[in-house]
């Protein structure tokens, strides 16, 4: 009985592998020679970041680059899972996923593997075994925070009195962008005047900075974990008559590279903005090309290269090229 079962399993596995092998071999040489790609993403309406992300994939995964693309958008994990399953049934060659939630993907990725479909994760990681996907292209929020902190240290200010406005507690971006600054606070290179969450809310950020100003404590850096909160903080500085930016008393730092925020940097009202790049399509395109030409991928986790722009070096071209939204 047991032997029979094992035999059946092995047979099934062989069958699946065989089918998969045929499947990919055939699909790669699709009638028009196009590579079939299924993309599962969050809808562009989620945020400006997502809109830029979706547009990026639409620009790279086109017929001219040799792709035949089907896309599915949902904010709901279960809908995404169904769509991914459907793509597997349709026999795509590559499955690109930005998951709505990190859990629940193991079964789907296993069936993709069985079908010989190569999976790439982008933007968001999943709680799955690394063997189940080819590579993940993600942002490293902590690296962004480190970049901002390093830039601050490079300014060689005589003292650092930092007002730290945090995002919604527990979110990826908050944890990553808080950690490097916390390290500076604990080793004493920077002084924490106040550390408070504004839950990404601009008006709350303004109130927090107001309360610091009212307390009369001295500060010379505002480190806000996104652009909106930096704008709120600056509104409070303006009302209190405190100068800020390139030639001001207070250094202002934001994150995310919104176009309007970069314009503030260009105008010298803010000092620094750090990118949270929604552009992962090019990297995945390169990796797929290398797999197609028989190459191997070196890394499982690929950190999306991100940059910063400061008031001293920013140019209008940078805003047009990297800025998101309008």
């Amino acid at each position, binding site marked *: 009985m047991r032997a029979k079962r094992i035999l059946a399993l092995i047979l099934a596995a062989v069958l699946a592998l065989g089918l998969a092998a045929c499947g990919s071999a055939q699909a790669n040489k699709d009638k028009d020679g196009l590579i079939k790609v299924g993309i599962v993403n969050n809808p562009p*309406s989620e*945020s*400006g*970041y997502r*809109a830029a992300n979706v547009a990026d994939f639409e620009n790279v995964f086109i017929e001219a680059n040799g792709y035949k693309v089907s896309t599915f958008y949902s904010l709901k994990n279960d809908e995404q899972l169904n769509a991914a399953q459907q793509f597997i049934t349709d026999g795509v060659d590559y499955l690109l996923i930005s998951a709505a939630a990190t859990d629940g993907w193991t079964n789907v990725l296993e069936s993709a593997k069985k079908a010989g479909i190569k999976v790439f994760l982008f933007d968001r990681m999943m709680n799955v075994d690394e063997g189940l996907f080819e590579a993940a292209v993600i942002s490293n929020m902590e690296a962004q925070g480190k970049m901002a902190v390093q830039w601050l240290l490079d300014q060689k200010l005589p003292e650092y009195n930092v007002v730290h406005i*945090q995002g919604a*507690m527990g979110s990826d971006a908050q944890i990553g962008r808080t950690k490097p600054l916390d390290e500076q606070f604990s080793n004493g290179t920077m002084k924490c005047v*106040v*550390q*408070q*969450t504004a*839950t*990404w*809310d*601009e*008006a*709350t950020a*303004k*109130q*927090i900075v*107001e*309360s*610091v*100003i*009212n*307390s*009369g404590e001295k500060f010379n850096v505002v480190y806000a974990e996104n*652009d*909106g909160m930096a*704008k*709120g903080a600056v*509104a409070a*500085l*303006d*009302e*209190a*008559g*405190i*100068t800020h930016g390139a030639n001001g008393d207070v250094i202002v730092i934001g994150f995310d590279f*919104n176009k*309007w925020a970069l314009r503030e940097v260009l105008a010298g009202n803010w000092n620094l903005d750090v990118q949270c790049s929604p552009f992962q399509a090019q990297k995945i395109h390169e990796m797929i090309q290398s797999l197609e030409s028989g190459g191997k991928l070196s890394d499982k986790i690929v950190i999306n290269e991100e940059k910063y722009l400061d008031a001293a070096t920013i140019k209008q071209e940078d805003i047009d090229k990297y800025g*998101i*939204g*309008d």
Partner: protein
Amino acid sequence: MGSLFKKLTRSQLAIPLFALFLIVIFNLIRDPEFFSIAIATNNDGNTVLTGNLISIFNGASAVAILSIGMTLITSSCKGQDISVAAMAAIAGSVFVSVLRSNEITIPVILLAFFLSCVVAALFSLFNGVLVAVFKIQPMIATLILFSAGRSIAYWINGGATPTVSSPLLTSIGGFIPGIPIPTPIIIMVVFLILITIVLRLTNLGLYTQVVGISERTAHMNGISPVRIKLIAFIISGVCVATAGCITVCRIGLINHETLLLDAEMDVILSVAIGGNALSGGKFNIYGSVIGAYIIQALTVTLYAMKVPSAAVKAYKAIVIIVIVVFSSPVVKDFVFRTYKKLFKKQAEKEVQAKAA
């Protein structure tokens, strides 16, 4: 003395005023400078007043305005509208999209504000019809816009976080040149005066309470409960638009996800702290407004005390629980009876002493 105390404890405003008093005392002990007001020159070159007191009144204005509308809805419908903050995001988005498609001048701002009032009133009316005509429980009826409102706002914005900037908008969200008081405070006061006039000059206040206490009685006296409820929702819509537009002007940006985030809870709390029964009937608008200032005073106090980020909400909750429990009829009654006992005994003793 006795009758004054009696009057005070019977008054709906007793507990909110007492809570406000406690917060003030607490802050004065903690830091005598806490409420001091300073004069500064802002980056636009205006002379302005700054200080925690200004911050509290300024920061609370949106919630205070929203709480006026919420009080009327609570009183007449025996329930709350939980979609006010989401609707404010819609109203703010309408405001911004009108401003962005035109050159920003005073008439354009007025037009944008008027349109956002109309849109907010229509959405609020949608809630009102569900509640008043279809008799759906207010919380369920407004749950629809609570969850859909911010998506609608996104759709209006058509992008992430559109910004608008103009000195005119700064003077609405910040300071009008030459006037040292933040404009949102002035708008709030004007709004309160207007509502007071409306309630004094018309029977709206009385009718609203009658509908809240007994719809049957209202009906038999020729008052249409449906109409009164719809009026409450329309007024709330105007409050929503005003609050949304002020908040947009403060920062010069609309973020549909975070505009007045969680404000509906603060607004309902203001109404409750203000001594208004959430089950409808008698109401006092000033109580709700004081409630809004209490919540803001509490928030500013917690910021000033540098309470860790993760703990702010917990601290706020503790204080609010205490206020709400103390204003419950059970505790109020207990305090009143205890005082009466003490006072009477004293009086008897005095009488006995005189007799002796």
